[in-house]
């Protein structure tokens, strides 16, 4: 294993303070963009005003995601960094397997949540944002949702630190709450950048709210509040089951799991000398 000094040098402390500032700026960019978009949402959604909101949403959310990546990525230990590609591949492959099972959800964050449980909120946020960026190589429509995925990874890590993954029945509750936040943050992207959602079921729900006279943003936010919490509750439950199924020797090699006792049970016994 790599040898690292136990105390931080002066330069190390400055670097970690700079990273903290970048993290806060990234979170502020995402939150500020959301508030701005809600306050200034165009009453008349012709193409021009929506294009304005789309540019603000894209710029603010992508800036936030990039700042988070720049802040977190260089500080991740190599053992966590090699998990990021694994998480992205799991997001894609498990999403496909679940899709082929015929259930009406999309489950595209299983890998992100699993990494957040094993390696903590910072790694989860970086994984979420990076997955969106790398996956946009094949599907550019996921790129604008980078901030939402980062939020899912971050909240999953916080839930794991708070011990919500120690009991199986608490994980879906954490997922449900995460889904509320993630859905609300992603709604302006769906509304202003794409003008709607691409699924059949979600599209029908948005149409129903529009038929009642809601604005596009309100209709998509309500639709997100119906589908996202359910989806994330299932995703968190699956991630919890996967984490429980891993051998303890594997899970306890992660310092985050050992330090915050993320999963129930004791560390594997070391043989007596």
């Amino acid at each position: 294993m790599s040898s690292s000094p136990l105390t931080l040098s002066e330069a190390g402390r400055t670097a970690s303070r700079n990273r903290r500032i970048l993290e806060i700026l990234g979170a502020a960019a995402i939150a500020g963009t959301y508030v701005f978009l809600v306050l200034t949402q165009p009453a008349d959604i012709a193409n021009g005003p929506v294009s304005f909101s789309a540019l603000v949403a894209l710029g603010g959310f992508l800036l936030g995601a990039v700042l988070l990546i720049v802040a977190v990525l260089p500080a991740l230990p190599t053992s966590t960094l090699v998990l990021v590609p694994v998480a992205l591949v799991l997001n894609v492959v498990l999403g496909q397997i679940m899709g082929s099972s015929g259930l009406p959800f999309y489950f595209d964050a299983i890998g992100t949540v699993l990494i957040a449980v094993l390696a903590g909120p910072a790694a989860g946020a970086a994984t979420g944002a990076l997955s969106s960026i790398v996956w946009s190589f094949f599907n550019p429509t996921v790129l604008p949702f980078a901030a939402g995925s980062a939020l899912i990874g971050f909240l999953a890590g916080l839930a794991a630190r708070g011990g919500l993954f120690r009991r199986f029945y608490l994980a879906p509750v954490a997922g449900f709450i995460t889904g509320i936040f993630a859905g609300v943050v992603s709604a302006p992207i769906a509304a202003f950048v794409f003008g709607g959602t691409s699924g059949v079921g979600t599209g029908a729900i948005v149409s129903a709210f529009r038929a009642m006279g809601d604005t596009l943003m309100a209709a998509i936010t309500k639709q997100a509040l119906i589908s996202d919490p359910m989806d994330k509750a299932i995703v968190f439950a699956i991630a919890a089951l996967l984490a429980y199924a891993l051998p303890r020797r594997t899970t306890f090699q992660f310092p985050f799991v050992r330090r915050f006792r993320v999963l129930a049970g004791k560390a594997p016994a070391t043989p007596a000398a």
Partner: protein
Amino acid sequence: MRLHPFTALTAAACTAVATTAAASWQLSFAVSIISSVLAVRAGVAGRVLSAAAVTVGPLCLSLVVLHGLFFPEGRTVLAEWGPARVTAEGLQFALDLASRTSACVLVLLLFSFTVSVPDLVSALAASRIPPQFGFVLASTLTLLPAIVGSLDRIRQAQEARGLLLRGSLLAHLGALRLQMVPLVQGLIEDAGIRGQALEARGFGAPGPHTSYRHVDDPPGQQIFRALALVLAAAAVALRLLASWPTASL
């Protein structure tokens, strides 16, 4: 002439941003057609168009149904069935957004299917972007086909042990578990080994790193990138000034 990966990326990203800022379906169509022609000339038309159809097709369909039938802001009513009203404004909005998204997706896919991934990774390593980003990108792009293969082998192995991929929902979920758990376990185990190997070769160490691959970056392309960025920024600034919301604040 060979394009530097960053030049192609800048051109694609700036075109997407300018198309979004311009908000005109004629321009969006022009960008889509030019991207398709360039894809045909680069010999990747089949892959670009099929990937674009999979991602944008359902969205366009949903936009036409959603805004075509339900657009409370619409004034010019063309037809009416109960709560559903077909309005000219709704159809126009669906056309605007569908053509804009298609144009952006096509131009970005044209970039990702024509860029040489080794060149992109070495260009990223040579720039000031954290080296970890290049690693994640390259590792994911090479891991993806490998995983699909290993998932196939896991399924075959479980089927040889009596796994049945039919029956009730519960049996289906059980079958999923039998495939997912070995896959995830193997991936995390492999990642641990890879992490130690990388660490042993000084991946996380500070200081200069040697690269065996060099990507040329001619000055002409650097000037082109700067110009493209300035033009895209100007398009964004014009749109922000033109549509700044004053009444609702």
